């Protein structure tokens, strides 16, 4: 596995120059490698992890289990497309086990999420059932623990 990917996955703010230092490679090479990853769709985007509960944004998120009837020829993909095209849908996974899709959605209020499920998700053709679970508290997301920065308690005694 390329170390560049692992480092960028953990911290997307690392610049090509940072990476060149950390990996002892030429800056130009790093830039070329990243460009190629972007072109090939290996790197799809760069985002920031935000604890919205600490802001004044009204915010709620939910995980929805969706069961569907797969379509002939196109399996689950066509239905998936109909689901993920809604901007409220933040993540969509095809699952093994008791249901077919996990849909993670974000909305302002529980009412808004309920409305989305009832009016937009459930009526999609071939969707046979949904079960909505609201997120009460996020402890960790995308590898980041939701906590305030800790005070530096390291002792100064060690020279």
């Amino acid at each position, binding site marked *: 596995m390329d170390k560049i990917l692992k480092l960028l996955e953990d911290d997307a703010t690392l610049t090509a120059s940072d990476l060149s*230092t950390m990996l002892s490679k030429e800056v130009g090479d790093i830039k070329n490698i990243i460009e190629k990853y972007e072109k090939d769709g290996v790197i799809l985007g760069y985002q920031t992890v935000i604890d919205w509960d600490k802001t004044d944004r009204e915010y709620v998120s939910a995980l929805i289990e969706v069961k569907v009837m797969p379509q002939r020829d196109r399996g689950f993909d066509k239905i998936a497309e109909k689901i993920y095209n809604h901007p409220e849908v933040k993540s969509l996974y095809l699952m093994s086990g008791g249901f077919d899709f996990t849909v993670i959605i974000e909305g302002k209020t529980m009412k808004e999420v309920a409305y989305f499920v009832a009016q937009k998700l459930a009526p999609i053709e071939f969707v046979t059932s949904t079960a909505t679970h609201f997120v009460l508290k996020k402890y960790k997301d995308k590898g980041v623990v939701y906590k305030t920065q800790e005070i530096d308690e390291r*002792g100064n005694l060690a020279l």
Partner: protein
Amino acid sequence: MMDYNSLLSKTVLDMKPSGIRKFFDILSEMNDVVALTVGQPDFVTPWHIREAAIDSLEKGKTYYTSNAGTTELREELSKYMLRRFDLNYCPKNEIIVTVGGSEAIDIALRAVINPGDEVILPSPSFVCYGPIADMCGATVKVIETKMENSFKLTPSELKAAITDKTKLLILPFPNNPTGAILTKEELEALADVIRDTNILVLSDEIYAELTYGRRHVSFASIDGMWERTIVVNGFSKAYAMTGWRLGFACAPHDIAVQMLKIHQYAIMCSPTVSQFAALEALKNGDDDIEFMRAEYNRRRVFILEGLRKIGIECFEPEGAFYIYPNIGKFGLSSEEFCERLLYDYKCAIVPGTAFGECGEGFARISYAYSVKHISEALERIEKFVNTLK
């Protein structure tokens, strides 16, 4: 009324307390200080290591271990020394698990020094060697390493310091505070100087895992040096485990057996819970070291460029996590420089004099901090030095 001055040990009464105690006392009472002073990683011990320690407590492993440490840990240490440094030590009688690298230094010095012996100590260096050697009745001969030599000990300096009383050479590389390292060729040149003597060597390699650009070479791996060298290492810096207080010493059997006597009377054995943590670190911690090293390296380059941009002359450190800028041109003593930076700009760095008299004109800056924190400190240092130009 007890007259303590006449009651207490003369040697200890004469021992100077750490020179910058006062400085740290001031620092601890100030708010909003951006400090670059600590000599320990800012990472938390990796979770799998902490978990192994917790697991050992849950299983009730709260007993003493054998004096030298658990058999399993010493066996793993033996493999580690071979894997990383190409060194062979018998886990049964050539490895002692100690309370930090500090204890390993202490028992090594006490095991080899007779009163009147001379100990050669390159300076600036970590603060403990001199006082402990003093306690053992040794005469410490300081060799001041120089910036123009990249703070390395040179063969000619070493040769000049050797007398027929020389017992021990201390090699504190990678070096705290300068960040200097010694390459294989440089170690070989030093080895040539002492090869035909009976001089022993204490090689403090606590920062062995933190070198940038090239792998650390142990002095004991140089031809003919194994049998005269005590290697000190530990878990604090490599695995971010300072608070666990776990280190180790590797030495030829005849030396180790004497060191072990002191260890068994003074310490009994190192903390059992820490030994279980260390075992996990050695077995599954190589990736952790690599990750932390890469991160320190980024900061190293960042702070080196930052200081040079401000117009502060810096030797490029190749090991540990310190940088040792030359602040002599600003016309203040190291202590004045650091105190004014602290009082007026609320930024703390350590005066070079804390690490030996030859530290005058220098300061130690630790980069075991986030880039954001270092960046803020650099801004404050820049504002300060602009008033001195």
